[in-house]
């Protein structure tokens, strides 16, 4: 392995990425916790339920898989549902691919495994500040953030499996997820094209909620991006928002405890009925 992957500067970049991910952990940790509760109640072997974390690594798809498995659905139905919910990952993959072109094959294989909303957001913000002829620091930043996300996600699922049933459902911890998404979204809307794109995506997502397996999310993303492109013309549409943590300095808010862990949050919201029910 090239020494550029393990020197002191490399560790600093990876550490900065990890710190940039910590606020995300506060947002998606409760979601992982709720999934852990779902896993504990799914009626399947606990280890198998936990393995949806490292294998599927996307919250809403995990919730759907656990609910379907618990209900005794056919295997093909479970797999197709998970893949339909995760279809948006293809778009995320396309967004990251240009930054990974020319990098080692092992790197692309590992980095692709870590793609999900939080790592996409943290990674893209860093890649946009990177030099086209030297992506290495941004790779390490993404890796640091992605690994913290991965570890935190799996830990919160396990925690939810073990102690989640004792947390009062009235706290509605699952509400933290949409609040965090709003908190991350709002500072990105300072450019009008991004605002129109987000508005269109939200409207389509709401209108398409009855669509099976959350396929409406995929449609909403496609429509939102199209609207954004039309609104922006040929201009560069969305700058890196001021809210995005800077690389090394102030990525860690002082108010967050060190022990915060994460989710893969995929943060993809679960089907409404499933998640609210799981929390109880």
């Amino acid at each position: 392995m090239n020494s550029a992957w393990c020197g002191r500067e490399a560790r600093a970049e990876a550490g900065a990425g990890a710190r940039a991910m910590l606020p995300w952990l506060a947002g998606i940790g409760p979601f992982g916790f709720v999934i852990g509760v779902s896993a504990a109640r799914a009626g399947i072997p606990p280890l198998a339920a936990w393995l949806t974390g490292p294998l599927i690594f996307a919250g809403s798809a995990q919730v759907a898989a656990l609910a379907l498995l618990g209900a005794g659905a056919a295997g093909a139905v479970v797999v197709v549902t998970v893949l339909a919910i995760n279809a948006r990952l293809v778009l995320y993959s396309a967004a990251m691919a240009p930054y990974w072109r020319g990098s080692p094959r092992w790197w692309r294989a590992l980095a692709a495994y870590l793609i999900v909303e939080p790592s996409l957001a943290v990674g893209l913000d860093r890649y946009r500040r990177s030099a086209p002829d030297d992506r290495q620091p941004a790779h390490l930043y993404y890796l640091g953030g992605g690994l913290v996300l991965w570890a935190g996600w799996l830990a919160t699922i396990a925690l939810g499996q073990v102690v989640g049933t004792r947390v009062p459902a009235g706290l509605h911890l699952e509400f933290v997820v949409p609040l965090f998404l709003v908190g991350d979204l709002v500072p990105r809307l300072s450019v009008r094209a991004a605002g129109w794109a987000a508005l269109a995506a939200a409207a389509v997502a709401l209108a398409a909620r009855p669509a099976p397996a959350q396929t409406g999310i995929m449609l909403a993303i496609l429509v939102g991006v199209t609207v954004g492109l039309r609104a922006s013309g040929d201009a560069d549409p969305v700058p890196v928002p001021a809210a995005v943590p800077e690389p090394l300095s102030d990525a860690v808010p002082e108010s967050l405890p060190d022990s915060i862990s994460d989710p893969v949050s995929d943060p993809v919201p679960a089907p409404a009925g499933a998640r609210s029910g799981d929390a109880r």
Partner: protein
Amino acid sequence: MIVWLVIVAAGLGSYLLRISMVVLLGRVGTPAVLERSKPFVVPVAFAALAATSLAGQVEANLAGLLPPLAAVAAAALAAQRIGRPYAAILAGMPVFWALTALLA
């Protein structure tokens, strides 16, 4: 046994979705429209996910529309003023809890 196989298959399929464009675009290059689309992916994905999730919360909350909507308004305001996503949680959750308790 079938449960384990299903979870592994779902995980493998999810990984193939994740790496699909990395492999494909690594060979053929990125179309210009995809390059221009990149800045929009995160905002539109988060907007769609937040809207869907909020709609689910509104349906599930017995206290009605007010607590989640007021919490989101507080969260958006805090995020805009402070510029950090966690501010949305710190502002929104107390509003949600308080209104839910008052209206229940």
